[in-house]
C-alpha cells in the first residue's frame, strides 16, 4: 500500500534569544493509509513539534522548518503556500489537541465552532450543515446533541469537550488524524473512553492516525506501529507488539520499565529513568541519551545510525542490548533488566478482545 504521509529528514528548529533549539533534528517516517502510528517520548522529545510541523501550525518566528519534506498524498506540505495549506488543515488532515479546556474558544457556542470546518471544507450551508453538526456530535457520543449544540465549552465536562474536539476534527472526513496527547488532561476513566472512540472512528472512517503521547500504556492498545522519540531523534521504531516484546534501544527499555502493568504486580519494580531530559539548548554531542544510558560506550559520542534489527524494527543504538555481556556491563551501572511477565500491557487487552 502506498504511504499517505512521508516525513523525510524533518528538522524543526526554534530560534530563541539564548540560542537555537533543535526540537526536531532529522526525523523520517511514513504512514500507510488506514494505519495508526504512535509517537512516544518525554516532554521535550520533539513529538509534539513533529506533529505541529506536519500542519505547519508552529508560530514562525521562533519556529522554523529548516530541512526536510513532509509529503502528503504526493504533495510537499513544507513548500506549500498558506492558501493551499488551509484547504488541507481541517480538511484532509485534522488535529486533536491535548487540553480540551483551553483548545475550544470560550466565547463561541460549540455549534458555531463545529460548523466552521463544515462550512469551510464540506461547503454545506444552513440547515444541512446544522444537521451534519448534530450528527457529528452524536457520532462522538454526546447525548442530547440537539440541545448541547447551543452550549458553550464551559458547560461541558473535560471528556465531553474532548469529544467535541474530535467532532470538529472529523467534521470533514479527514484522511489523516493527528492526536497530540489527546488523553493527557483527562481523568483515567475518561481516557479509556476517548481512546476507544478514536479507535472506533479510525476503523469506521478508515482514517490514518498519528497518536502522540508520553504514555506507552495509551498507545499499546490502538496503534499498529510505534516510534520512540528522544531529543529530536527517533530512537527506535517497531510494530507495537514487537516493541513491547523485544525493545532494542536503552531508552525504550527505560520507558517500558517505568510503565505500570496490571499483570506485573510483584514481578518487576517500577523504575524511573535516571537523570533529566537533555537541555535542548546545549544537547550532548553524539547520542543525546548517553548521559543517562547504562549501556554507554565510547562510540556513543557520534550519533548512531538506525540499524534494522527485525522486520520493520529499527533502533538507533551502537550497542546490542540483548547481548548477555552488555546486560552484565549495564547491571553494574544500576540497570535492572525487565523480567518477562505473562499477558500484555494495559490497554492492549481491551482492543484485542474486540
Amino acid at each position: 500500500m502506498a504511504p499517505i504521509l512521508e516525513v523525510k529528514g524533518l528538522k524543526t528548529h526554534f530560534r530563541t534569544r539564548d540560542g537555537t533549539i533543535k526540537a526536531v533534528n532529522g526525523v523520517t517516517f511514513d504512514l500507510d493509509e488506514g494505519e495508526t502510528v504512535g509517537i512516544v517520548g518525554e516532554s521535550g522529545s520533539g513529538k509534539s513539534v513533529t506533529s505541529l510541523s506536519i500542519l505547519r501550525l508552529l508560530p514562525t518566528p521562533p519556529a522554523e522548518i529548516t530541512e526536510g519534506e513532509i509529503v502528503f498524498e504526493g504533495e510537499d506540505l513544507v513548500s506549500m503556500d498558506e492558501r493551499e495549506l488551509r484547504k488541507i488543515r481541517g480538511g484532509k488532515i485534522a488535529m486533536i489537541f491535548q487540553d480540551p479546556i483551553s483548545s475550544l474558544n470560550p466565547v463561541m457556542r460549540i455549534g458555531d465552532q463545529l460548523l466552521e470546518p463544515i462550512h469551510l471544507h464540506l461547503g454545506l450551508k444552513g440547515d444541512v450543515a446544522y444537521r451534519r453538526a448534530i450528527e457529528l456530535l452524536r457520532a462522538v457520543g454526546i447525548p442530547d446533541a440537539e440541545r448541547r449544540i447551543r452550549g458553550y465549552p464551559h458547560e461541558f465536562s473535560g471528556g465531553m469537550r474532548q469529544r467535541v474536539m474530535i467532532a470538529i476534527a472529523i467534521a470533514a472526513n479527514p484522511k489523516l488524524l493527528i492526536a497530540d496527547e489527546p488523553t493527557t488532561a483527562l481523568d483515567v476513566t475518561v481516557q479509556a473512553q476517548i481512546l476507544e472512540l478514536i479507535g472506533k472512528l479510525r476503523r469506521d472512517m478508515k482514517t490514518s492516525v498519528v497518536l502522540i503521547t508520553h504514555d506507552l500504556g495509551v498507545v499499546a492498545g490502538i496503534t499498529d506501529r510505534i516510534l520512540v522519540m528522544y531529543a529530536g531523534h527517533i530512537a527506535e521504531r517497531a510494530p507495537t507488539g514487537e516493541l513491547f516484546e523485544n525493545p532494542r534501544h536503552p531508552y525504550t527499555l527505560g520507558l517500558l520499565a517505568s510503565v505500570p502493568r496490571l499483570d506485573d504486580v510483584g514481578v518487576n519494580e517500577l523504575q524511573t529513568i535516571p537523570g533529566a531530559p537533555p537541555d535542548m539548548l546545549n544537547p550532548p554531542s553524539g547520542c543525546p541519551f548517553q548521559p543517562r544510558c547504562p549501556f554507554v560506550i565510547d562510540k556513543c559520542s557520534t550519533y548512531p545510525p538506525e540499524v534494522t534489527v527485525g522486520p520493520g524494527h529499527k533502533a538507533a543504538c551502537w550497542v546490542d542490548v540483548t547481548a548477555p555481556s552488555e546486560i552484565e556491563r549495564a547491571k553494574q551501572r544500576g540497570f535492572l533488566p525487565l523480567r518477562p511477565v505473562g499477558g500484555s500491557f494495559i490497554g492492549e487487552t481491551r482492543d484485542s478482545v474486540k
Partner: protein
Amino acid sequence: MRRYIIRRLLQAVLILFMLSIGLFGLIHAIPGGPERVYLAPRQTAAARQAIIHNLGLDQPLHIQYIKWLGGVLHGDLGTSFTDNQPVSSDIFSRFPATIELFLSALLFALVISIIFGVTAATRQYSLTDYTLTIISYLGISLPVFWFALILQQIFGVQMRMLPVFGQSSPDTSGFGPIERFEDYAVHLILPTIVLSILFIAGWSRYLRSSMLDTVKQDYIRTARAKGLSSRTVFFRHALRNALIPFITVVAIDFGGIASGAVITETVFAWPGIGYLFYDALNDRNYPILMAMLLIAAAFVIICNLIADVLYGVVDPRIRYS
C-alpha cells in the same frame, strides 16, 4: 443578575451619601466664601452680612447640610448663587453640549484605539508597531491642556482652518440646515481630539497586549488547524476574546471622563457642564459644585457597574448572583 445590580446600586447610594458629607464639609471650608465674589468693592460689613444671610451661610454647617440633603431627596439640588436659577436647570441646560462631546470623543477614541491596537498587534515588532508604541507613550505623557493649546495655536491661529472656541459660530441665523450641521461638526473636531487623546493612548496599548495574549491561546491554534484564514482566525476568534477585558477597561476609564471634560471644555469655551464646573469653582458657587461632584461620582460608579455587567454579557462564562 438583577439582584446583583440592585445590590451594587445600594452600595453606590451609600458611597454617594458618605461622599456628600465629606464634600459638603470640604466645600464650605473654602476660604473667602462666595460673598466675596458678589460683593462690590468697598461695601459695608452690613451688606456683606446680608449676602451671607441670604445665602443661608450663617447657619451651623450640619443644619445647612440637612437642609441641602432634604432638598436633594425631594429632587431639589439647591439654587445657584450666581443666577438664582435652580441648580438642576443650570446643569440640564448644559447637558446636551457635554453629551454631544462625550459621545463624539467616545466614538472617536474607540475607533482609533481599536484600529491602532489591532494594527500594532498584527504587526508586532514592525515599524508600525514601534511608531504606535511611541505615539501612545507620548499620549500618556501629554499635559492635555497644553495639547489643546497647541492644537488651537496650529489649527486656529496659524492655519485658520478650524474654530477653537464654542460649540457653534456666534451667528448662525443665515445658515441652512446643512451649513448649520457643518458648523457644529467643525467646532466639534478639536475638542473631540483633545478629550479622546488620553483614552486612545491607553486603550490602544491595552488592546494590543490583550490581542497578543489572546493569539497565544490554544483555541487560536485549534482555529488555525481547522483551516480558517488568518483574517477569520483574527477577527472571529481572537478579537472577540481580546475585546472582553478591553470593554471593561473602556467602561471604567470612561467613568473618569469628567476630568478631561473640565479641561477640554474650559480651554475650548465649550458650553457644557465641565465649563460650568470651572465657573462654579471661580465663583465659589457651592450648590453647583456639590451637585456636579456628586453627579460625576455617580457617573464613575455607574460606569464601573456597566463594566461589570458588560463583562457578564460578552463572556458566557460569567454569571452574577
